[in-house]
């Protein structure tokens, strides 16, 4: 029997393992042997049984990996703080495109830090990008087929194999993703405990850790939205998929806020909205601040559409429409009336 031919060596390894004597390479060798057959596993488990019942606290306690991961990911410090000096960008010589993108982003984003590493020495290369956004919105081409806009206070990790076929994005916070449909591109997005599998589309994911829900708004195409335990739902264009982290229930909402992806497009639609609401949204979308000089202005109502206008034009239009004044000072654009 095969078991007996390797018996002595394996027995020695098993006993060393349960006596707390196994060196790393011995533990690895033993585990590889266990994986080879159910009979091997049974043999090992017999020894575990004996071991568990003859020593102090050697009983097998099962380990909950998901729970442990939750605990670890909570303690993981964000790698790149915007004000940290650890800005490291390596440009692979053979891919000039990365240089252009990276360079333009470094200039554009300022406060956000981008970290790219492509090691030209490695045969099986993978592309790995981390985007961390605090106070700015990052627009980025991750691959020729995938574009992303990362909202404030969000971070994104991206991973792709060399051919760009397998792609994974992990979102903490909010991001808008556009994928040009291609049979060759597979994209899986992780947000909190949920997964979003793209079926050639553009969609927005909102998964701030402090919120109890994960939202996926689909602009074009459709996506599969699911978790490990739940096969989830298909979300079509114009719909928003909502996942409740407490009840673990998926829902589809057809109503959608016209400004949900305004942080990316800067296309804003206001329908009889209060000035207070308008100002709040403008402050979410634009880096400069808009301030109401006094609370009396908060209830003014306005209906207006802006297509990627600069903030000074927007405040000017609001001022003209409502008959109020605008001034710019060190704090931003201040809306005030003459009284």
């Amino acid at each position, binding site marked *: 029997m095969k078991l007996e031919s390797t018996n002595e060596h394996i*027995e*020695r390894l*098993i*006993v*060393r*393992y*349960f*006596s*707390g*004597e*196994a*060196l*790393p*390479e011995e*533990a*690895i060798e033993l*585990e590889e042997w266990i994986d080879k057959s159910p009979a091997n596993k*049974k043999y090992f*488990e*017999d*020894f575990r*049984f*004996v*071991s568990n*019942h*003859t*020593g*102090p*606290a*050697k*009983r097998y*306690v099962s*380990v909950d*990996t998901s729970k*442990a*991961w939750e*605990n*670890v*990911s909570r*303690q*993981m*410090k964000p*790698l790149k703080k915007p004000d940290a000096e650890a800005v*490291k960008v390596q440009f692979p010589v053979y891919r000039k495109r990365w240089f252009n993108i990276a360079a333009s982003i470094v200039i554009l984003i300022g406060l956000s830090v981008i*970290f790219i*590493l492509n090691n030209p020495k*490695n045969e*099986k*290369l*993978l592309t*790995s990008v*981390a985007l961390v956004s605090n106070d700015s919105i990052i627009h980025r081409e991750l691959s020729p087929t995938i574009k992303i806009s990362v909202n404030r206070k969000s971070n994104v*990790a*991206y*991973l792709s*194999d060399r051919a760009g076929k*397998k792609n*994974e994005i*992990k979102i903490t916070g909010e991001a808008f993703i556009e994928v040009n449909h291609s049979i060759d591109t597979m994209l899986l997005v*992780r947000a909190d405990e949920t997964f979003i599998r793209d079926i050639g589309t553009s969609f927005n994911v909102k998964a701030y850790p402090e919120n109890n829900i994960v939202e996926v708004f689909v602009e074009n195409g459709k996506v599969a939205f699911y978790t490990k335990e739940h096969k989830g739902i298909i979300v079509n264009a114009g719909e928003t998929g909502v996942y409740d982290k407490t009840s673990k229930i998926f829902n589809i909402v057809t109503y959608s806020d016209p400004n949900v992806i305004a942080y990316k497009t800067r296309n804003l639609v206001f329908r009889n909205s209060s000035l207070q609401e308008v100002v709040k949204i403008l402050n979410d979308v634009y880096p400069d601040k808009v301030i109401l000089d006094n609370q009396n202005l908060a209830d003014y109502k306005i209906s207006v559409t802006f297509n990627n206008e600069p903030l000074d034009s927007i405040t000017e239009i609001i001022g003209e429409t409502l008959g109020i004044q605008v001034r710019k000072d060190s704090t931003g654009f201040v809306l005030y009336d003459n009284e």
Partner: protein
Amino acid sequence: MFSDLELITGLHDGNEIVFETVFKNYYERLCNYANTYINNMIEAEEMVQGTFLILWEKHEMIDIHTSLKSYLYRSVHNNCINHVKHLQVRRNHYDEYLHYADIEYEQVSNDLIGKELEQKINSVIESLPPQCKAVFKLSRLENLTYNEIAEKMGLSVKTIENHMIKALKTLRVELKEYLPLLIWLLWFKNVN
């Protein structure tokens, strides 16, 4: 699935996806391995989690020339050795450790397996040749390492190892009738 080399590059880069993948692949086994040194699964888990957190924080310094698996087992092994040394210092200063060992042993006696198995185990241990029995008790009940037992008894480490193999093999054979319960449980677990 990403290759080892891809995973190592991703770890070096501090990519969260890679980090999560590696964590989920190796966590349970590393905990089991650490537990063989530490004899306390809660501490073993804390230690493995700590090992991963350091890996995350020092990602740029990661320089792996072996396989990823060897690197992880080696890191956990080194941390275990440090942990055990730390415990030994504690053990030398207070008698706390033995007290703690007593409590744990009592818990074993109280669990589902019952008195009958306990009696059987004790009688098998008592029936071992004197030296073999002494080695086994020092290892299992006092948690000494092969080296420590060898020093204490004036024997070679190899002899200690042989005694341990003999003791555990004897127990396995003698406790055969209790083992089917385990197979049944394992089978049941796999079905679910």
